């Protein structure tokens, strides 16, 4: 009985020992790798921030109007953004290297798949950046146009345009990433068709008389409009 227990404990001890012998060095190596890459990332972040500030890129980007790509977040200077990107890029590589230190098939597969996905992720990020900038730009254009034309609730029109463009951007980005593309595409088609149908029904059934009244008012308003404008 005692012999059997001792044998089990020995087996367990051997297994634990083997696990420690196999894992601890890899774990220590991973920690060291993480620390080295974190230090490197931090140093490069500081350096990149300084470099961008020294080359007056903040001012250049602001003057070129590129900060508007980020909307209200434009108060975050370009130097800070570049520094953050550098930090996470370097630290991300460190994380992958740390995972690889375990030398397991699964971790190797994860590392490989992440590395393979990098170009797609970069492209998707660029698409999102441009798309969100376009959404903001077109939203503001709609807001100004609707306000100048005296439309009711211009902010809602602007928000609608922004959401539509942003949604289309997400659909394209998801397609690039192969991330549930069918779901996003279907949602996009359903939303678009639904919107078109709603507008058609609203105009055809509910708002026909309102539209007619608006057109008549516009015609009458031509005389009124002269009072606002013809003294230019």
């Amino acid at each position: 009985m005692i012999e059997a227990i001792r044998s089990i404990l020995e087996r367990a001890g051997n297994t634990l020992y083997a696990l420690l012998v196999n894992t601890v060095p890899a774990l220590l190596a991973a920690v060291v790798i993480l620390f080295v890459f974190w230090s490197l990332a931090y140093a490069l972040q500081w350096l990149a921030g300084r470099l961008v500030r020294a080359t007056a890129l903040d001012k250049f980007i602001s003057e070129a109007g590129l900060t508007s790509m980020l909307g209200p977040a434009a108060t975050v200077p370009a130097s800070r953004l570049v520094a953050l990107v550098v930090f996470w890029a370097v630290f991300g590589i460190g994380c992958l290297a740390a995972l690889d230190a375990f030398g397991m098939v699964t971790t190797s597969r994860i590392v490989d798949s992440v590395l393979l996905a990098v170009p797609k992720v970069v492209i998707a990020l660029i698409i999102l950046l441009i798309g969100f900038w376009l959404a903001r730009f077109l939203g503001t254009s709609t807001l100004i146009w609707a306000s100048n034309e005296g439309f009711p609730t211009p902010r809602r029109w602007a928000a609608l345009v922004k959401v539509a463009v942003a949604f289309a951007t997400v659909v394209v980005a998801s397609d690039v990433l192969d991330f549930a593309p069918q779901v996003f595409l279907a949602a996009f088609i359903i939303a678009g068709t639904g919107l078109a149908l709603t507008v058609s029904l609203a105009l055809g059934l509910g708002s026909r008389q309102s539209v007619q009244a608006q057109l008549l008012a516009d015609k009458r308003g031509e005389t009124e409009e002269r009072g606002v404008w013809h003294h230019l």
Partner: protein
Amino acid sequence: MAGTLLTSQAEEFVHHVQQADIVIGIPSYNNVRTIGHVVQAAQAGLAKYFPQYNSVIVNSDGGSTDGTQEAVLKTQFEERHMLLLPTPQKPANRLSFPYHGIPGKGSAFRAIFGISQELGAKACAVMDSDLRSITPEWIDLLVRPVLLHGYDFVAPLYQRHKYDGTITNSIIYPLTRTLYGKRIRQPIGGDFGLSPGVVRAYLDRNDWESDVARFGIDIWMTTVAMAGGFRVCQSYLGAKLHDAKDPSSDLTAMLTQVLGSVFSLMEEFEDAWMPVEGSEPVDLFGFRYQVGLEPIPVNLEKMLRAFGQGAQDLAEVWKQAMSGDTWREIQSLGAVALAPDASTRFHLPDELWVRVVYEFATALKRHPVERSHFLRSFTPLYLGRVASFIIETREMNGDEFEDRMEALCMTFEQSKKYLRQVWRGMQPTPAEAEMLQDNRRR
């Protein structure tokens, strides 16, 4: 160079006529009702005042479908005896042709200038085709200073109703006077006299495809002449009566094109206007007389509503273009504009208005991507200022109104130091101030 701008019809005409001393240019688009009168006045003016010179009348048309071109060619001045000319005069050559390029007054002028240069004209005058008050004397007053007195650019001076030409009164006159130091009262008048030198300067420029091609042409011509150091003067032409603008046309676009041209030219001619202090009158020709003026109807409530609504809807856009103080003052005025007693209480002070104009001009320079947004969002601000000016000057006669205009111009001139500061980036926008603080913290 001009050859490439002209249609084959225009080139054939140039080849046939070969040389002219005076070119009268008339841009048009569907102006059949009025252009005949303008052509007759030009013919009479040339016959009466410049009978010894070879003259040409050129109509540069934007594709009219109402018979404008035919009207130009068919119009005859039948009542020569009324001019009391000692001898019969040979009528001026006439050409009417459709121009090439972006549709607009600027493209029409470009073709006219091309013909003027090709014909070696000693003087060129351009005038609008919708004029109802033009007389033969206008030709004399626009051409003579160039032809016989060595001036390069003759601007018109009209007597106008106080509510006529509000964009000129609110922005264009005070701003160009402050920038370039010359008191040209109607910088976008539309009727000008030009020397061959200034015509060449226009044709040599490469910005014809911009806003200049449309409504920005008048201020562009005046600015290039002033900033280029050409000799400028004014001629008093009396009243300017012309067709009301088509209400269906996009008038916001007209405002933004004029403003876009002014602000773009500020960037180009920075070296010319930066050192200018104060302003000086320019030589004035023509006999001044009083004329009865058509009253101009204005819709005060709608202007105030547009301003108040704009302050609510466009606050975020304006915040990017204005300094914090200016933005807050405008926002509080927006609430006043929507109050029931706004038509008596609303007042947008000169000093605040000047800051708005200067800060928008600077914002356009600093944020080229947002340029179209800033320009289009300016419309409610402009309407607010016009409304305020109308409320303030309601009881004023013409002379009192001109005194009030002079006070506004002085405010523009006295604030030029502020313009220099914001233009050179010494006064950051709220967003930039926040960014700077953030940088400092780090």
